[in-house]
């Protein structure tokens, strides 16, 4: 502001005035640019401050994890508890890998049909029920995952007398996945151009035929992408399964058996007193992260391919 008032001082000739304006402008520009340069440098610093710990994390994960998963039997053997005689015998994590796959599979079977149908309903209806379901889905999507564990424990494990089991864990994960699938399916169905719907209706098709035969096929990319993202979130969650799956030490796919899961065995091995188990845990973490990365990258690449094709 002061720089502008300086400009208003009376000056004798146009020549002098021009010089003076130039001087002030040079001075102010120098200050502005210095300030800009400092702030931009600070922003760049922030970028590197963000990058450093995250790269360290990934680097250490791969450096410590790769030797573990290359170790014979890591994927095929059951875990062993090390003893004083064999302090390095950790076995493998086949039960946790199978458990994670089974948990996610059952959860997907429970969550996908309901989630997609609700998403379609939200996209195609204007009713009050739809509006309130939308708010519920958005709120549930961010709910802390430990609460799903509490819900599954009280409802499935205790009230239904199912006990600690794979199905209880899958129920918790399904509750976690549902709102994510609902929201992404709604977005996908709404993304279908209205002209397609109108063309179908104009040809005399019944509304449900239009929805099933025209809108759903057109929206399938977005729906599947949302499902994959929901699965990749569910497979990495520890808290909901921690309370209800029981942590079984055998390979089992049966819904009523207690099972283990990759995140759960990371949590338990990390706290172990055995150094060999604390080394092995990096391998488990690497397997989990690779699962998650492959899932979310494939969803992303597939979605962008389809978009280009359109």
């Amino acid at each position, binding site marked *: 502001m002061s720089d502008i008032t300086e400009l208003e001082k009376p000056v004798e000739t146009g020549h002098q005035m021009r010089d003076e304006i130039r001087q002030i402008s040079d001075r102010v520009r120098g200050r502005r640019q210095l300030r800009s340069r400092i702030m931009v440098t600070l922003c760049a610093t922030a970028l590197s401050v963000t990058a450093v710990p995250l790269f360290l994390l990934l680097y250490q994960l791969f450096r410590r994890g790769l030797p573990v998963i290359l170790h014979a039997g890591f994927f095929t053997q059951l875990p062993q508890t090390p003893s004083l005689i064999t302090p390095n015998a950790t076995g493998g994590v086949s039960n946790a890998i199978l458990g994670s796959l089974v948990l996610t599979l059952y959860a997907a079977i429970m969550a996908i049909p309901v989630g997609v149908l609700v998403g379609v309903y939200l996209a195609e209806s204007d009713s009050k029920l739809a509006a309130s379901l939308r708010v519920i889905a958005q709120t549930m999507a961010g709910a802390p995952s430990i609460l799903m564990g509490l819900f599954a424990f009280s409802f499935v494990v205790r009230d239904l007398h199912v006990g600690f089991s794979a199905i209880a864990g899958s129920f918790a994960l399904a509750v976690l996945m549902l709102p994510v699938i609902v929201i992404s399916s709604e977005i996908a169905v709404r993304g279908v151009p*209205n002209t397609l719907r109108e063309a179908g209706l104009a040809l005399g098709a019944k509304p449900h035929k239009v929805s099933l035969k025209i809108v759903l096929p057109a929206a399938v990319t977005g729906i599947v992408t949302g499902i994959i993202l929901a699965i990749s979130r569910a497979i990495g969650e520890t808290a909901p399964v921690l309370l209800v799956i029981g942590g079984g030490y055998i390979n089992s796919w049966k819904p009523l058996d207690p099972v283990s899961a990759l995140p759960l065995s990371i949590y338990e091995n990390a706290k172990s007193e055995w150094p060999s188990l604390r080394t092995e845990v990096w391998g488990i973490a690497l397997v989990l992260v690779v699962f998650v990365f492959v899932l979310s990258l494939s969803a992303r690449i597939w979605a962008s391919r389809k978009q280009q094709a359109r």
Partner: protein
Amino acid sequence: MSIIIPPDFGTHEEVVPEFNSGTPSRSWYHYLLIAASIVFAAVSVGFVGTILWNSLPEWSHHTGTLLGGSGWQAPLGPFGGLAMIVGTLETSVIALVVAVIIGLGTSISIVFLVPRRFRNVIATLVELLAAVPSIVYGLWGFLVLAPWMLNTVDPFLNRLPFAREVFGNSSQEFGTSLLLAAIVLSVMILPTFVAISREVISVVPQDLIEASLSLGATKWQVIREVVLPTAKIGLVGATFLALARATGETVAVALVAGGVANTQFHLLYPGTSIASWIATEFGEAQGNEIAALMALGVLLMIVNFGLSLISRGLVSRQRKVLAIV
């Protein structure tokens, strides 16, 4: 955690044909959709209702203890929640402040400083990092950062003047502490915050930026006077989402905070948070303690639902503001 912020569906100018618009009788398909919706609503109501119902015994008798009492006497009670509530606040607020300051700089850099061809790669990388399960962040904090804290950071902090009043003694043997929990949380919520705030910043209309540049504004002036004010509401929304994630984080905090119901809130002492306390105590809990843990869950739910309702409202309001511009 996946980040999906749905577009705003509040207004319906382009009306989608209703199911019953042409047909006098509703089809089976319509009823199927309604049935699925009712299942979803029932699950959601059951979710809230079950946790509330199971926590009732505790709320009806010991509300005061739960909200302000210290000490958690495991089998019978009293169950004081003060340590967990303050621990949650302390860790998540510190984590949020760090993550928002650094994350904002990072998002600005990604949108305005990084060359265009790297921008998509970095954005994808950030979203991948946001998808890394929180247990992996906890593992890294527990096995890598905790020894480093114990050997390097804690002794250094203790040598600073007045540090004892703020940080307390670092006398624990593992290096796990509330401070470490806050650090791990901030690293963990950074990708989440950056992913959303980058999106919010990058949709600021190019016209506004170019108009400002053509008036001779420097890069920082454009950011400060045009970009940040335009994106303000969305950025606040992103902050609330990050806070919701930090308060709800369970296993990472359970690993690195130390898991002690400690009411001396110095940062270098081990502590705990609501979510991680539920996770660590639930395995051996019986009767009353289960009710008390459920009551802590209710607290967490109220805070979290409040935060996410606010943040989603803000982000969709941002969309409307930008649509007008």
